[in-house]
């Protein structure tokens, strides 16, 4: 075991990717997460790789149970996503995705706030290239908006850190809480932006579906989970998070039901799953934090699996809108089955991974007296099955026959999906494998009769609602459309208001100029009218009248002379 921060291996590999081509590059990108994970496995808790910078002590490799679990998770996610994207011949994407995975690892092993900030910014800078890698006008715009939001988050974090450093100059990464005033709030909002809190969430649903089929798999794994990790570190037990989390679990499912782009549906359901984690962090008991972290682990795998299956559909058909797909099970049975495993996992069916982690958070909510939050989470669980569990596989692979007879995706995609599906089942069937890695001791048994029965009842009757609505033709059909979300404010309202105001200023300016110009020209006219021939000042004067004038003037002087 070599005690170096894992991000170094990923950054070096990203540099090597630029030099290598073909199978050596493929081998390198697979080996890096594998070897790095083997090296990381069982690293004893402690702080390594500290660097002194001015009066600050930067800790690049701070290991405890929480950071170690996220470290393992990100290695596994990177490995799956790398295998999934082996067929891609795009140096930009391959280098950016390794840098991105490395930045995420750097962030979770950061021991102090400054180091966290460095990787926080690197996450934004490296991931935006995965959005831009689609190389379309839409992805360019979405990438810019994504970058602006994340740079904003980084700025808030930096200002928060600067203020915080006056009370705690060591900048250790630990519980901060909102009681610490402005610093706490700034960091809270900074984490909130990356964690897709309501009203800050639309960068996610805007940018993720615009990325490449492979890029989205990377994106879905890292950024938001780093934010969950940061919140778990710095704001555990902050009650506000319970309500924010409940809102996050609830509102995206409505959007997911009417959204046509199936990867955007998954992006909404990603926020919904984050809601469960945020509630867990907000409750802050050992069970709740364990639940939040376990759910983060499972979510990366099953959400990755769902994004991979939809990426595969996009890859082979070139289409991703529910209105254009359907009937793909006929020629893509393997992808269909893998997608259904992901859907069952996110819906928390017994024996699948979501079942063993989601209920920890819900149990904790009940135990701590958050009855209404529990009801909302229960509604969200039913809703997630409805839109992610049924809608995604149904509209892509079943529903009406779109006539598309696409073949299965490349073998590396299927392999990556199979690994993810196997992990979903492994954790679902043998939850101890995950539980023993959790930050606190686990005394929770997911498999008892009541839990299995009630969960199955909830899910089957949600499905019954879907069947009933579909048979009665009440279910909203998939329509090619855009649904307005918070991004409307900065994509439509502000720009059009800006162009109105700008246009108004321009018009006012041109009116003022015109008025000034006409004023000046009338002045010139007036002056010149006196000077032109027959004008007052250009007339011929008689000598006699001039003399009379002089006499008058002299007479006036004389008067003055007598008077004074």
């Amino acid at each position, binding site marked *: 075991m070599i005690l170096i921060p894992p991000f170094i291996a990923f950054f070096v590999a990203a540099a090597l990717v630029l030099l290598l081509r073909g199978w050596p590059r493929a081998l390198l990108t697979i080996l890096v997460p594998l070897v790095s994970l083997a090296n990381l496995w069982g690293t004893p808790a402690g702080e390594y790789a500290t660097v002194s910078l001015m009066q600050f002590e930067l800790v690049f490799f701070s290991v405890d149970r929480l950071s170690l679990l996220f470290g393992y998770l990100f290695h596994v996610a990177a490995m799956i996503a790398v295998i999934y994207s082996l067929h891609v011949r795009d140096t930009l994407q391959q280098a950016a995705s390794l840098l991105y995975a490395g930045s995420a690892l750097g962030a979770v092993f950061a021991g102090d706030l400054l180091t966290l900030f460095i990787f926080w910014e690197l996450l934004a800078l490296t991931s935006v290239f995965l959005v831009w890698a689609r190389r379309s006008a839409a992805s360019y715009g979405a990438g810019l908006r994504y970058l602006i939001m994340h740079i904003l988050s980084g700025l808030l974090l930096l200002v928060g850190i600067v203020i915080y450093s006056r009370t705690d100059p060591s900048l250790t990464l630990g519980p901060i809480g909102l009681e610490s005033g402005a610093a706490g709030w700034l960091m809270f909002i900074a984490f909130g932006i990356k964690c897709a809190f309501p009203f800050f969430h639309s960068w996610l649903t805007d940018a993720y579906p615009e990325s490449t089929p492979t890029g989205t798999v990377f994106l879905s794994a890292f950024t938001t989970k780093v934010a969950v990790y940061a919140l778990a570190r710095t704001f555990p037990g902050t009650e506000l998070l319970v309500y924010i989390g409940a809102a996050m679990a609830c509102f995206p499912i409505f959007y997911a039901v009417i959204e046509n782009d199936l990867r955007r549906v998954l992006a909404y359901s990603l926020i919904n799953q984050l809601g469960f984690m945020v509630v867990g962090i907000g409750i802050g008991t050992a069970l709740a934090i364990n639940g939040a972290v376990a759910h983060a682990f499972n979510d990366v795998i099953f959400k990755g699996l769902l994004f991979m299956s939809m990426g595969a559909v996009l890859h082979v058909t070139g289409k991703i809108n529910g209105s254009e797909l359907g009937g793909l099970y006929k020629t893509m049975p393997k992808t269909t089955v893998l997608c259904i495993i992901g859907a069952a996992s996110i819906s928390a069916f017994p024996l699948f991974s979501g079942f063993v982690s989601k209920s920890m958070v819900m149990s904790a909510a009940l135990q701590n007296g958050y009855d209404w939050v529990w009801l909302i989470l229960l509604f969200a669980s039913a809703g997630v099955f409805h839109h992610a569990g049924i809608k995604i596989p149904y509209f892509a692979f079943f529903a009406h026959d779109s006539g598309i007879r696409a073949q299965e995706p490349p073998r590396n995609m299927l392999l990556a999906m199979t690994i993810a599906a196997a992990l979903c089942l492994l954790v679902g069937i043998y939850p101890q494998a995950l539980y023993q890695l959790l930050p606190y001791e686990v005394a929770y048994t997911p498999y008892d009769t009541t839990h299995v029965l009630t969960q199955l009842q909830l899910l089957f009757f949600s499905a019954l609602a879907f069947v009933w609505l579909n048979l009665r033709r009440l279910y909203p059909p998939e329509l090619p459309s855009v649904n307005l979300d918070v991004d409307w404010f900065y994509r439509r309202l502000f720009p059009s208001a800006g162009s109105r105001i700008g246009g108004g200023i321009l018009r006012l300016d041109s009116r003022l*100029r015109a008025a000034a110009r006409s004023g000046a020209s009338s002045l010139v006219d007036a002056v010149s009218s006196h000077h032109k021939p027959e004008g007052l000042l250009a007339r011929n004067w008689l000598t006699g009248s001039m003399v009379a004038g002089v006499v008058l003037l002299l007479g006036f002087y004389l008067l003055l002379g007598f008077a004074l």
Partner: protein
Amino acid sequence: MKHKDNYLFDNPKNVQRLLRVFYFCCAVLVGLELVVHRHTEHAWEGLFGFYPLYGFVGCVVLVVVAKWMRVLLMRPEDYYQASTDDADKDNANQRAVDVEQGRAQP
């Protein structure tokens, strides 16, 4: 397509069969509640049929509200592209008017 009726769900009978199995499962799950003793943590949980009812009603409400949201929020697919074009067009038109009226340089 040539392979009509070759695939599993092209035959309506298979869909019917699947649905019947599904309805049966639903019925069994509600029935089990009478047999199995459940230990509940919350008063509402203990009510008979709480979970099935909550799941069903919750999802119907979800879909109804979402359909209603569509009225408010749905826009054509090229909404955002059109918006920038429109803004450009608006500016261009305004400029043409300005030039015509001698308020701006052409």
